[in-house]
């Protein structure tokens, strides 16, 4: 049994990133889209920690804390908007939110 190398971590994080990216583009439920957005950020976090560990530099680990904080702020604002919108429109399906048209 070989231990995981940097390539494994980068591969996993690229995979997570791809899942998040296509999830955002393809899913229609706002909450699922939100989870996919978080997945993208977490993919970056995983890669960052792995790089930090294998390159022997600490910046990456510190950056992770900033990313987590940013992600939390983003979710707080995002959920507030979703709740306000749901009260107004009774739906959070992206394809039904189409009042902005020329």
């Amino acid at each position, binding site marked *: 049994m070989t231990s995981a190398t940097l390539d494994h971590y*980068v591969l996993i994080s690229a995979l997570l*990133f791809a899942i*998040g*990216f296509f999830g*955002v583009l393809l899913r229609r439920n*706002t909450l699922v*889209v939100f989870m996919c*957005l978080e997945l*993208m*950020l977490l*993919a*970056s976090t995983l*890669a*960052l920690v*792995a*790089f930090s560990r294998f*390159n*022997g*530099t600490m*910046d*990456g680990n*510190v*950056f992770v804390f*900033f*990313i987590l904080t*940013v992600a939390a*702020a*983003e979710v707080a*604002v*995002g959920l507030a*908007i*979703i709740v*306000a*919108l749901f009260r*107004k*429109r009774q739906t959070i399906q*992206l394809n039904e*939110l189409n*009042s*902005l048209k*020329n």
Partner: protein
Amino acid sequence: MTLEAVKLAAEANQWGAIFPELLLACLALALLALEIVLPKKLHAYIPDVALAGLVGTLGGLLVNFHSASLGKESFNGLLLHSPGGQVMRVFFLLTAMLVCILARVSLAKQKVPRIEFYHLVLIITGAMMLLAQSNHFVMFFVALETVTIGFYILVAYFRTKTASLEAGLKYLVMGALSSGMLLFGIVLLYGVAGNPTLPGHSASAMHYPALAQFLVANPHNFLAGVGIVLVLVGVAFKIGAFPFQIWVPDVYQGAPTPVTAFLAVGSKAAGFAVLLVLTRDVFASYDWLVTPALTAMAAATILFGNIAALTQHNVKRLIGLSGVSHAGFLLLGVVALSGPVASVSATGAIYFYLFAYLIASFAVFGVMAHIAGVDDSEQTLDHYAGLAKENPFLATILAIGLGSLAGIPPLAGFMGKFFIFMAAFEGGARWTLVLAVVGVVISIYYYFGWIKAAFFEQWTPPADTADPRPARTPVNVVSGIALGCLALASIFIGFYQGPLGQWLTMK
């Protein structure tokens, strides 16, 4: 870490160098405190405090423009204080002042909390100023996210209106998507540039100079290339360049008018300030990748923005799509800078264009804020019919602002386009230049459609129903003076760029 190291690190924190940003942050908090402390009848003066604070900060910044910290790094390399950074600081402070003036007009028509709006504008402005001076990817990301998250709230600020909330959600999803891609790009660059087996690797790989050094040593690294592309895509989302402009029309339409102005001018300028630093200083050795990508993007952006704006009837969508084409012109300046024959005048040309765009855009947005009714997202060209007769002042401001945006000589916008085209010619982007000229010709059509609506069209109200158009807001003293100054500045800078031109192109 020993105590000595902590001491050394603390000495690098020159708080004096970011005094304007600190002032804005304190002012933003003071506004919230004032709202608690002051009796309700005095709340109307709190926006004046914000405006006065901005004017004071701008004055102080201009007095200290050639400060001792110029050209130096502070906070252990997180920030680099450059002349370009100073110019952008002035730019963002001016933007914030004008946004506050517009907000007084627009917020008065809505039942929403007032003070938080100014608070957020100040916070975002401070973050933009830091963003323009960032010299490290951590600083860059945190400042950018502060700006972006602030904008999510501002776009959805009219929370009783479906349009505003929808625009907020759209901006949030697209903004977070672009931030995610940008972040992954940063992480890849960090990972590659810190790899001990590669030449030129660095222990602090997110520091711009270290990263630039690594990229020079490894000019054809695949992962670094992917990282650069992802970072550029993230920035392209923020400036609304084709093909990442899909959010622009909807978000611009749904956002409150002052926020639309803030997005169109401030957010775009912040994107370009960052792009300028990245392409010129950091990614310079990857110009084989960056220049073709940006050239194609500039050409597509100019054409798409102008052609899509042709069919718009809602003025907010129209100005949004025309803003996309302006991003294309600015990208042309960036291309001139990063191309094989770097144009010496391109940096100055971009700054000049940004200022001309600021002045002209806010004149137009100022008029829009006065014409808009309670439904802020529904502003069509019909609402402008007969404006010249009812309110000649606003109609004149509108004509000057739109003329400058269209690039009619002798207004400032014309000189801006002229400088950019000269720089692009020097930089050798010939065929993009031809497309840009075609774009200018197309843009004149829709800008003049708008002017025509205000000056030559008569409004005949439907006989059986009430007038569906919103009542015009009377122009108050502050916004009247501001709009007059903007229009005069557009004319004046068009004729005479002397000191401003020198000041902006300073090395």
